[in-house]
Structure formats: C-alpha cells, structure tokens
C-alpha cells in the first residue's frame, strides 16, 4: 500500500475493484464506513455482488479478466473530458517526456508494442525509451503535453480506442454503470478531492496482473491521487504478514529490502552494482536506489559477519545466483517438480495441494519427490497427498515428515501489515505439545545441516559454515539453545560495526558509534562499516541513551495531524513514513494540494533544529528531507524512480509500457475484441502450446464444453485453504462446505436449485459444490452474447473434515499460467461447466 488502512477514512471516492474487503479484510470496512459517514462514495466493481458491494453507493458488474478494458476506458474518459490534474501531471509525472519516435503502440501494431519477438514471446524494449537531451543527460520534455511523441499523447492515442461502447461490450458492464463509475471516480481529479483504490488478488491473479495495477497507477497519477491522504493505490494483502515476508525476500528474485537476486552473469559485486544501480544526471532527482550498493554491502555484512570483507568482495560470491532468464516462482516450482527435477521439498506454512493453481498438477508433482517436509500447525492435504483422492498410497515413494509449528500467539515477533506497519507481538501462551516457533525449527535445521557439512563436507560449504547466526547464547556444542527473536530483529535493523562519520559535513559529524544499532538506512555505508539485514527496516530497532528501543513495539495513540497517521504506534517502513510519495501531495512550493488533509507541509520560515537552517517539513515523515521542488535544492517527489517522476509510461515491465487489454488464457471469446491478432498477453509464458505440453496444463478457450466463466475467492470464515480454520468447529459451523454461486438464470437452465449438489468442471479437473443460486451473480452481455459466470471459494480440502463433507479445492479447476511479469497464477478467470451432481 502507498497509504495505510486507517487512511481509507480520508477518501472521497473509494474504488474497490479486484478485492472484497468486507469478506477478506473486514477491518477495512470500519474505515470505509467512516469515510461514508463523511459523505464519501464507495464504488464496487466485481463480477459478483459481494458483501462489499452490499455496502456500496455504486456497484458495477464486470467479466473477470477485463479490468484493463474497464480502466482503459476510464483513462480515456479522463483524457477526453480533460478531468486530469494538469499541474500534478506536468510536474510530477513523466507525461511530458518525449518517447523514442520509433516506439509504436497496440493501436498501430494490432495489439502489440514495438519490439515483439513472437518465437521468444518477448519484447525487445529498445524502442520503449525516452528521447534524451544529450547535453544534460535527461529526457526531453514537452510541458505543453502536445508533442505527438510525448507520453501524454501516446497514452491518449492508445486509450482513445477504449470507448464506452467498446469497453462495455468487452467487460459486460452496462454502459450506464460504466459511465457512472467513470464519472464518480474522475471527480477526484480536482485538488481537494481524494480517490483511493483498493485491490487484492482479484487484480493480481491474472495474466495481466501487473498491468492491471499499472493501469490504476496511471489513473491515480492523472488524477493527482498519489501522495495524498485518502488516495493512493492500496493492495489489501491476503495474509496478515505477507507484506513482511515479501519485504524480507520471500520472492525468488528478491533479497530482503527488494534488492535483486544476482544472476550468474554478475560475477562480482561491482558487476552487480553496475547492473542494478540506476543512474540519473538530473540534479533534481534523488534517485534513492543509487544508494543500493550501501544496502547490498550492509546486507552481506549482516549475513556473513566478519567474513565479509572488502578484500573478498564482502563474500558476494557466496550468494546463490539465478541463471540468466531463470524463473523460480511458484508455477515453475511445480512444473519442475512434476518433471522430476526435485528430490526434496519443504512445504513451510503452506498448503500447495489446495492453494496452488491447477492443484492436480501440484499433487502429481509431490508424488515425484523423494522426501517432503511439511511444517505446519496441522497435517494438511499437502502432507497427506499420498492418501488423497485417487491416489494409491502403495504407489507413492515420497517420505513425508511433519514438523509441528506453533501458532502466531505462541511466539513473539513482528508482523507487517499491508500498510507497511511493522507491529511487535508478544507471546500469549506457550507452544502446545511438541510444536515450536518457526525460528526454533530453522535454528535446529541450521545446526544440523551445518554439522553435516562440517562432518561430511560438500559443495560450497562456506556459505553455511560461515553464516552469521548469532541469535542467542550457544550451548557447549556451539548450538544456540533458544532463539532470541529480538536479536533477529536487531540484525535486520543493522549495527554500526565501526564509528561512522559523515565526512562531507563541516565539521565532520559522527553518525554512529561502533556497536550501536543503526539509526536508519540513511547512515548505512558501502565500505563494510555497517551491517543491515534489510535496509527498509533500518530504524525499526534503534538505540536511545545506550538502550535498544524496539520501535515496532510502540503503542502511542497520539494523532497530531488528525489524519489517522498515529506515527507513534508501532513503526512503518521506510523510516516510519505512513503515506508514501507524500512529496507529491504538495505543490512545487510545498503547500498541500488539500490544506484540510495535509500529509506534509513545507514551512519555509521555521527553523530546522537539526540543520539550524530555515525550512522545515511538518506532518508525516517526508519522502526525503530536501525542500520542495520549486525551492533551492528542491527535489522531485518520486524519489524511488531514477528520474523522480511518477511513471505513466512504464518501460520497466516486460509486457508493455502502457497496459493493454488481453483476454485471459481461458475466455468465452475466440478473439480479443481490442486487437484481433493478439488474444492473450503476448509476453505471458505458455505452459501448453500448439506444439503440446503436459496433459495437466491443457486449457480450453471458447470451448462449448466449458462455456461459463469461473472465478475463485475466499470467505471470511476460512483462512486461505482453511488449514487453520477447518479445524475450528465454530468456523465450520458458519461455512461448512464448498459451494458455487451461480445466477438464477443459469440455475434455471441447468435445473439447479439452491442447496443442490453440483459438479463444476474445467479442462483440468472437477469439484463438487453446493449450489448457491443467487441474484447476486448475473449473466453479462459480452460482445452481444450472454455470458454466465460462477464463483467458488478455495478454502476447502479433502483431508479435513475427515468425513469429506467439506469438499475439495477449487484450484483443481484453475489453469497453469501466470502474469507475464510475476508469474502469479491466473486463478481469477477461467472457463468451467456446471452440472447437477
């Protein structure tokens, strides 16, 4: 999230699209209700009339997988009617930048951007570049936004194809509803009006997932909604700590703090830094990522300790490297697994046999393993895959171990919510039975593996043997008996390993004392004098008067701004900033666009106590201390971008600098109505092609056998695949069984009544479900024909309840394909059939 949960209450228009907070993030509704009490409008766009929709001022149905068409239409609406926030767009975004004249968009290339290589399903992004002012080394601009090569004009051109009628025909959203949503949301383009967008898996789990969010970012930039209270683009994360785990390097391609994982070609640290550190010649651009080498070295110091020295490149060589172009994300793990490429597998706190898209493939993949370790609170469908439906245990060779983990209330530690707020939790009770905190399990594992390396040797033992693992007092055998989780948190925050000085200051100023916890990432160094496990968390565990202070455990309820920032409650990364890009929330002179909801404000005459000079930011922690843009030494607001600008043109993604509508892998349409030649995202990796593939990966587009659009979701009562909640009889009482929601029209055609048991099938599998026949799901008119839609939760599994009364995972239906950028599986739009069981 750019903003945070409480901030929803500051919005004037709340667009919920790709999310269902009333069901999945109930507490969000509290703040949405507050906003509505103030007169804010809640707009919900969803295939189904959801619990959130039941609270909406405006609801519009949509066919799953057509969000870009919907949003493209909104961009067009804003541009055609001139409803964008011009001053913001000109000053704070790259709209005025001039693009390479050779760049061509989907309007010109029948659905493609320039540089496409069909065989590789990849773009050569050479033409997706800006025209450079050679002398200054910065992109050329046209602040009038009239140049035909300007980002603004290119955008206008591309989205002029997204007329209301056309969008309505694609999305199935009635034109009047579409217009009403557009009008409501575009009304936030005026200063003094704030619009926010809340999304979740309904946007990400598509072949165009990243571009869905890009499309909204463009809208938010056009309307000046980024950096303000009640604005932003807010991912409602699906688990309480998924933000934290992503921050700490959960993804295969990122190290903690979103440092990229090195690839094989980056032979040494210098090569890595060169490749990964963005450069800017624009003096007004902070280009914060130019500090990356400091964060990387501090990270290496944190994990390899004293062994990491300047002389040995800080042990950079010890870091595992990705092969060039290698993708090791979720879908690939199971693709490789089913192809027999793995020997063992740790399923740690997860249940892929139910949560994984195309679960049948996952379940078959598990059978190819020699061993599996299932770390969980309960046994689940993954650990018990060998006795699952249709599996003969005698055929399975996999040895499965269950390591019982304890629950979150049985251990201490931090969790980071969607608003980047890291909160420290104390232990409520001791772990039950043999269960242990994850950290203890890892500790045990670490020392055993280390012992084996020591005893037996092996390939590249050093990274294990020399790993800094200093989380408690070692026993006589050198093994740490009990992990002190605070020490992990301190390692993440980082230490000064030497006295650290700001040598540029006159006179030089001491930034930190040897042995102390780092004050913040601003003081991290690239010379090995600091360590930091995760730079964005630096300042989360600091030092005051010689004592360690856990900032995440703070519990102040003060809110001086009245905006609900609660700066003294826990701690948010980075540096306790509650609203990101807040420098974009003020005009170039530092005055807030909306004085009534000022996140930060520049007071030119106030004296800054630290520097002793006039000029001071009030309010939230600003995105960097520099004065506002128009002042002397002023900086652009988007400090994480090399050029400091909000990216309307986004060449960083693999599938195009502007979002374009493509159909889902499985859709009811033969062709993409936007561009007849390119049906699905041309850069998405295909698992099943005309040349064939694994039978598990088949798909069925516009196939009369599967004429109904399917989607999946969760229910309040269950947590993800329900491993935790299906064992809670109270929750099972509320939501006992797999169900499928379908319209009265479809039910009528199929002679299905509410409460009937039905079978839902796709090209890959089938599940039974109890039919919920409802007016809340309506067929939509897509390209002149009626399209029916159904939806199922994915919270059930065969293993528990043991009598099988719960049903099985709806992921047995979902396809193997992912987003072109992230490979997040497309589980939100696929084709099914429904029949009376």
């Amino acid at each position: 999230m750019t903003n945070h949960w409480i901030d929803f209450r500051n919005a004037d228009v709340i667009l919920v699209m790709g999310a269902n907070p009333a069901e999945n993030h109930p507490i969000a509704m509290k703040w949405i209700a507050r906003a509505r009490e103030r007169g804010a409008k809640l707009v919900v766009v969803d295939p189904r009339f959801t619990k959130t929709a039941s609270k909406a001022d405006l609801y519009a149905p949509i066919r799953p997988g057509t969000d870009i068409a919907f949003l493209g239409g909104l961009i067009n609406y804003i541009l055609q009617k001139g409803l964008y926030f011009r001053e913001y767009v000109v000053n704070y975004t790259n709209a005025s930048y001039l693009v390479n004249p050779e760049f061509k968009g989907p309007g010109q290339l029948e659905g493609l951007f320039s540089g496409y290589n069909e065989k590789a399903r990849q773009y050569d992004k050479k033409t997706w570049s800006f025209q450079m002012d050679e002398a200054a080394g910065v992109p050329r601009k046209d602040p009038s936004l009239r140049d035909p090569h300007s980002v603004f004009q290119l955008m206008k051109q591309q989205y002029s194809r997204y007329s209301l009628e056309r969008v309505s025909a694609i999305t199935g959203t009635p034109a009047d509803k579409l217009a009403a949503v557009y009008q409501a949301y575009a009304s936030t383009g005026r200063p003094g009006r704030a619009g926010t967008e809340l999304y979740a898996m309904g946007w990400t789990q598509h072949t165009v997932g990243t571009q869905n969010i890009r499309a909204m970012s463009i809208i938010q930039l056009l309307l000046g909604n980024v950096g303000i209270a009640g604005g932003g683009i807010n991912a409602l994360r699906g688990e309480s700590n998924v933000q934290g785990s992503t921050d700490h390097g959960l993804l295969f391609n990122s190290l903690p703090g979103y440092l990229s994982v090195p690839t094989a070609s980056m032979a040494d640290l210098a090569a890595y830094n060169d490749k990964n550190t963005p450069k800017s010649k624009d003096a007004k651009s902070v280009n914060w990522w130019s500090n990356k080498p400091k964060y990387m070295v501090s990270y290496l110091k944190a994990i390899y300790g004293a062994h990491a020295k300047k002389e040995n490149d800080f042990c950079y060589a010890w870091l595992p490297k990705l092969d060039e172009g290698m993708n090791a994300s979720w879908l690939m793990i199971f693709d490789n697994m089913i192809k027999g490429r793995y020997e063992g597998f740790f399923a740690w706190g997860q249940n892929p046999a139910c949560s994984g898209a195309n679960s049948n493939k996952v379940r078959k993949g598990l059978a190819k393993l020699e061993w599996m370790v299932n770390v969980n609170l309960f046994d689940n469908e993954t650990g018990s895959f060998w006795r699952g439906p249709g599996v003969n245990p005698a055929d399975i060779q996999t040895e499965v171990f269950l390591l019982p983990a304890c629950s979150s209330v049985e251990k201490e530690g931090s969790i980071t919510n969607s608003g980047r707020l890291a909160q420290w939790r104390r232990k409520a009770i001791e772990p039950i039975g043999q269960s242990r905190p994850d950290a203890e399990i890892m500790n045990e594992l670490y020392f055993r593996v280390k012992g084996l390396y020591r005893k037996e040797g092996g390939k590249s033992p050093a990274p294990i043997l020399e790993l800094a693992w200093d989380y408690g007092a070692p026993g006589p055998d050198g093994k740490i008996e009990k992990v002190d989780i605070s020490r992990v948190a301190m390692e993440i925050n980082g230490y000064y390993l030497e006295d650290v000085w700001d040598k540029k200051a006159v006179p030089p100023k001491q930034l930190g004392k040897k042995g102390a916890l780092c004050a913040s990432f601003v003081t991290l160094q690239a010379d090995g004098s600091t360590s930091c496990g995760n730079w964005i968390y630096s300042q989360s565990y600091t030092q005051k008067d010689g004592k360690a202070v856990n900032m995440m455990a703070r519990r102040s309820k003060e809110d001086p701004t009245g905006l609900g920032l609660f700066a003294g409650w826990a701690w948010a990364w980075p540096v306790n900033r509650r609203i990101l890009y807040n420098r974009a929330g003020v005009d170039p002179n530092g005055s807030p666009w909306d004085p009534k909801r000022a996140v930060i404000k520049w007071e030119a005459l106030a004296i800054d106590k630290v520097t002793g000079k006039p000029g001071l930011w009030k309010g939230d922690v600003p995105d960097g201390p520099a004065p506002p843009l128009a002042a002397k030494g002023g900086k652009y607001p988007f400090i994480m971008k090399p050029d400091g600008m909000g990216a309307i043109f986004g060449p960083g993604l693999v599938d195009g600098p502007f979002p374009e509508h493509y159909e889902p892998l499985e859709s009811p349409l033969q062709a993409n109505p936007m561009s007849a030649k390119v049906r699905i995202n041309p850069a998405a990796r295909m698992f099943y092609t005309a040349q064939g593939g694994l039978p598990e990966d088949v798909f069925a587009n516009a196939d009369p056998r599967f004429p109904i659009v399917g989607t999946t979701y969760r229910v309040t009562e269950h947590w993800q695949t329900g491993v935790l909640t299906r064992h809670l009889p109270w929750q099972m009482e509320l939501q006992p069984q797999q169900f499928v929601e379908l319209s009265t029209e479809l039910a009528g055609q199929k002679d299905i009544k509410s409460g009937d048991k039905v079978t839902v099938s796709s090209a890959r599998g089938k599940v039974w479900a109890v039919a919920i026949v409802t007016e809340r799901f309506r067929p939509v008119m897509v390209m002149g024909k009626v399209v029916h839609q159904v939806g199922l939760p994915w919270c059930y599994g065969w293993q528990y309840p043991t009598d099988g009364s719960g049903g099985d995972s709806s992921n047995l239906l979902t396809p193997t394909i992912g987003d072109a950028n992230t490979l997040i599986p497309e589980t939100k739009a696929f084709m099914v059939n429904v029949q009376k069981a």
Partner: protein
Amino acid sequence: MARMALLVSPELCIGCRGCQSACKEWNGLPAVKTVNRGTFENPPDLTGADYNRIRFMEVPSAQDAQRWLFVSQRCMHCGDAACMKICPSSGALFRAKNGAVVFDKGKCIGCKLCGSACPYGLIRFDQANKVSKCHLCHDRTEAGLTPACVKTCPSGALKYGDRDKLAAEASAAGYSNLYGEADLGGTGVLYAFKDSPKVYGMLQNPAFPAEVHFWSGIKSLAYLGLGATVAASALHYLVIGPHKEEGEEVKKDE
C-alpha cells in the same frame, strides 16, 4: 445505572459473523453441525449453542440487482419481558443492572415456558433443557467490558452503550426507524433501520402474550382465595358450628 442497550445497524453490518464466533468463544458454546443449504447463512436458526446469528437476506432493490442484508438476531432484552414474567423459577431469568434479561442456568427448571412466552420466539434451550440465550454478556458488562460480539464487530454494526444516547445517535445519523424503541416496554436491543422493519424480516407489532399478562394481573387471587376460604371456614365454625356428634340434638324434619 442508566439503561444500556445494544444498537444493531444492518446498514453497517458486513456479515463477517465475528459476532457469532466471539459469542461462542466467550460463552464456551459448542459448535453445531451444519450443512450449506444454498446460502451463506448458518446456523439456520438460533440454538441453545448459538445466542446470536446473522440472517442473510437478499431483497430486491431499486438501484442494483440485489440488496444483501445482514441482520443480527438475538434476544431483544425486552423492557417488559414476557419470559421473565412467565418464568416459575425465582432468579432463573432476572433483570441485570444494565437492563439486560439474564439467565441463571442453575436456577432454570427447564420448563421452557419462557420459550412459549417470548413474543419474538428468540429463546432456545441447551442439551439439558436449560434456558440459553443472549444475556448481553452479563459477566463482561458487570466487569465494565463491552459484550464480546460488540467488541469483535469491525464495522460498527453492533454498538453497546447508554440506551438513550444510542437512540439519539441513530436518529441523528438519519436512521428513520428505530425498531424496538417503544415495543414491549422498550427493548434493550435496538435496530437502526432506513426502511420499514418488514424489509429486514423483523416481527411487526410484537405483542406481549395476553395469557401471561392477564394471569400476572390476577395471580394474587390464589392467596386471596385460599385466605378467604380458610377465613370463611373459621367463621362458619364459630357462627354456625359443626354437625354435632354423640348426643346431639337433631330436630326431626316435619
């Protein structure tokens, strides 16, 4: 203590049913085995182990295809509580300081008369046939806490507080219909509605059962009758006297 109340605002409720789970957890109530009946709603009715529940209702709406309402259901804590009036056991149902109608299972005799008397039909019984219903978290409120369901409610659909204040707040917030405000001596559970209570499936014009009402008006006749008869007998004995025994004088009838 001023009379307290629980204000239910279905317009705010998101049907998350935290209230249902919280109630079961706080009161240590066992789960009830259910099936999906083609609706999100479960259990299908209040039970001795479900003191509250959300009714899910799809009703037509002018604006959208649907209107989906989530209406909390539980004992109304009537100001004039028929269940208390009819209860033959002393202290099995009693009025708490905050105005709640609370039960004491130890004193409940399991006659289920209250079940028949409740105008709303909101009383249930546990396995041992003891009265089981919402008690407005008597144990919590006595200790200065809010009821468990209110505490857990994320949306503000359940609020607990001074009855008059809550009522005033609801009116000020534009809820035209305050269900329960005047019914049955004013209920301790109020509903803030924007439409007629019928839309939300509420009982129209709940009435105190006449039998209970009438009887409680005349029940002192039992004492009176007994007393009067005993007195009359004594009087008879003194004034007229008994039939004489041996040696009595009896006049022959002519």
